[in-house]
């Protein structure tokens, strides 16, 4: 008897199983339910302590971050979002409120893993210690990491939310993504 067809069937089943395993979704880390990080009161009342992307049902604590010596933005834990201290607070009348978080890490998905699926008009709530400021997405942009516009970090421009994570193809030799995904959102009083 010709064993060829049977071997093809077995090989096909194996390949389908291997492919399906590679396509299976990686589980998100459990929602972060701990209390938001406490920031120095001297940084101001408008300092963000928590972000919620309403459409995606994502909530993450926000911690204050600075600029590293190599020029990169300091980033918090993979399940947290960082507020760049040099930018505006949510209570300021002008300037960019810059928030950045991981798309992923070696241990799994990050707080902003789903950011590339966000659509214009989506609402992002930024909670401070005393109030919540809402922003509506007006644009989603992708920049090569080394060409991130300095204008995003302006403290004297229009008041807006700038949400940054990584995107584009992943370079396995360096362990980094090629691009930065940037979501711009304007103040919104819903």
């Amino acid at each position, binding site marked *: 008897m*010709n064993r*060829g*067809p*049977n*071997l*093809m*069937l077995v*090989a*096909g089943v194996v*390949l*389908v199983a*291997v*492919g399906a395993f*590679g*396509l299976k979704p*990686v589980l998100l880390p459990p929602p972060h339910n701990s209390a938001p990080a406490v920031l*120095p*009161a*001297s*940084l*101001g009342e408008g300092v963000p302590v928590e972000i919620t992307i309403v459409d995606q049902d994502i909530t993450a604590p926000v911690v204050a971050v*600075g*600029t*590293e010596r190599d*020029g*990169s*933005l300091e*980033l918090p834990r993979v399940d947290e979002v960082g507020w*760049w*201290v*040099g*930018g505006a607070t949510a209570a300021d009348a002008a300037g960019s409120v810059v928030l950045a*978080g*991981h*798309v*992923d*890490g*070696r*241990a*799994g*998905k*990050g707080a*902003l*893993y789903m950011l590339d699926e966000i659509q214009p008009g989506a609402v992002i709530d930024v909670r401070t210690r005393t109030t919540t400021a809402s922003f509506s997405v007006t644009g989603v942009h992708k920049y090569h*990491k080394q060409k*991130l516009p300095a204008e995003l*970090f302006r*403290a*004297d421009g229009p008041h807006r939310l700038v949400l*940054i*994570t*990584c*995107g584009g*193809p*992943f370079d*396995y030799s360096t*362990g*980094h*993504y090629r691009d*930065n995904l940037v979501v711009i959102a304007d103040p919104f009083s819903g």
Partner: protein
Amino acid sequence: MRPKWTAAAIAVFVATLTGIGGAPAQGAGLAVPSEQDKNYLITAHQFNLAQIDLGQLARLKGTAAAVRDLASKIVTDHLTLDEALIPVANQFGVTLPASPDDAQKVTQSQLEAMPAGADFDREWSASELSTHTTAINQGQAEISGGTEPAVIKLAQDAAAILAVHHGSLMRASTAASPPSHVDSGTGGLADPRRTLIPLAITAAGLLLIMAGVTLRRRSSL
């Protein structure tokens, strides 16, 4: 031309206004402060003088509006703090220096030598952040280890103001060094190509299954 007020001149002016610029009160009722209290009064006074000078420098030379605004606030607040400190020092017979200490003078000279621009803003705010951290720690040492309530009260009043300066300096210092890039992913899970390989493997498997089924049907005919 607008006259430039030096910290020392302002200190003399403040002392004259408050009528306590002369010799300290003498007599049996003069309280004797601890060394901690004395040291705090001297270092806090010199810090005030240095801040008035450094604030005036950045108010004129700062490029970013946030730096100039903060510099103005620093000048105003440290004038007020020194106005409160000088009578207490006189009350306890502590002689206050007429100028900032040597390290503070060196910092002032270095910053004065810099041209106005982003580098000056960065250096000024970083230097101020560092010295405010030291001043906050010195104030905490007085609050926890001082003996004279009037001196401890000075440290407590200054602590609230220095904390606000520290926060603003942290923001100004960071704003002077905006990030050039954001490395926010190291897992590769979001790589759009990541699903293509499993899809290709699955498709190849399905093709093999279809071919195998077709060949079996033909061979059974």
